[in-house]
């Protein structure tokens, strides 16, 4: 009996080649943990909704790491002989994962949009995913988690308590939702990272 993939299923081989089911499961796990952590932090008597900062910073960072490393191709040399154009696949791949991630992580931090709620989470997903995409294009997918992790960690430790000012730019992941400058940086990072990845693809890696 033939077990050949049906005609319509051939594109699903691309989905599996990039381990997208594993990435989706990882994102779902991150979202569940983020929802639990945000809820737990809010319920502590000595915290309030502003205590969700760790969740709003760390969950997008972890999710972007999963997205970035999932861009690795085990067969880059053969992929480069493809007749079909890669840029539409890369674009759909990145946009779909970004949309899913923003959606599920936003659901983890309901309420208080003026502080560390849905807007801040969506902004951080965009910024972190943009940095991961750019990193995949420049240093390779398997190390794409590193720059955002180093940057996010440094910002988490060094950002001033009061939002705004210059910190709205360099410490954009730590800003409350409505902060315009932080949004500008995150959206720019996403657009630049996505453009780099879509045009160049992930940097080839050995092994």
């Amino acid at each position: 009996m033939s077990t050949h993939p049906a005609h319509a299923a051939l594109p699903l081989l691309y989905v599996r080649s990039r381990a997208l089911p594993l990435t989706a499961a990882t994102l779902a796990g991150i979202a569940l943990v983020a929802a639990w952590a945000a809820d737990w932090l809010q319920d502590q008597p000595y915290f309030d909704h502003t205590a969700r900062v760790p969740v709003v910073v760390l969950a997008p960072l972890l999710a972007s790491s999963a997205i970035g490393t999932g861009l690795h191709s085990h067969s880059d040399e053969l992929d480069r002989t493809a007749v079909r154009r890669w840029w539409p696949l890369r674009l759909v791949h990145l946009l779909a994962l970004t949309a899913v991630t923003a959606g599920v992580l936003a659901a983890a931090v309901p309420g208080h949009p003026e502080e560390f709620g849905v807007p801040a989470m969506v902004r951080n997903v965009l910024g972190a995913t943009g940095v991961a995409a750019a990193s995949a294009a420049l240093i390779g997918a398997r190390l794409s988690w590193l720059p955002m992790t180093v940057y996010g960690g440094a910002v988490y430790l060094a950002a001033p308590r009061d939002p705004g000012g210059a910190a709205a730019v360099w410490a954009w992941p730590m800003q409350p939702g409505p902060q315009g400058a932080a949004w500008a940086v995150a959206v720019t990072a996403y657009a630049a990272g996505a453009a780099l990845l879509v045009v160049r693809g992930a940097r080839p890696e050995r092994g």
Partner: protein
Amino acid sequence: MSGTEAVNTVEVRALTVRHRRTTALDAVDLDFAPGVHGLLGPNGAGKTSLIRVLATVAAPSGGRVELLGSEVGAGSDHRSRAAVRRRLGYLPQEFGYYPGFTVREFVSYVAWLKEMDAAAVPAAVERVVARVGLADRIDARVKTLSGGMVRRVGIAQAIVNSPDLLLLDEPTAGLDPEQRVEFRALIRELGRSTTVIVSTHLVEDVAAACTDVTLIEAGRIAYRSTTRELTELGGTGDGGAEQPDGNPIERGYTAALRAHRAGVANR
């Protein structure tokens, strides 16, 4: 040697490839027509750089590359490269595979990349997998196969689209002697209608399968001839200290390399 100009499927003029400060290929001119052609040379000679340019995965630094009637050198557009890739098969020196894929799925994936007619893919995949002797392992995961079998999967994906130009980089690496013999028979058969270029450091592969040989040394063409002429260059092996050990074609290879190096040194 490689046919007339009219039937050349590969025409390379002044091809130059540079990697940072290293010149991998230096103004190389080459023509290939249907048949099996061997690329020989020491490690680092530029064989893989040449194969990668011909496979359209690397852009040359300079020169003109025309494959199957389309220009694919620096500055060529996607349409030209796509036209060639549809008729191109390529086995890289190191090809990765997706851990969860079966043989059938991996070869199907490459067929999908080549934009083959989806309705024709199942039969094409089964045909090429049978041709490399893996019909009974077609639904086994690639990661469960031995190194030699994985290499044969690589050959299967390279011929799934019935290519007019087949590029094989160290194709017999990891194959046992029996598999090597079978593989040489396969490429001799393919070479009747296809231009097959085999890059290898195994002189015996060239002797057994190729009609002609191009020797590359330090990014330049050191020697081109038929395989028979290279073998004759090796002489009878009784030439005393000047004749290295080995079979005639190995001696011919060494003699050609030495002659080229002496010529370069005298310039």
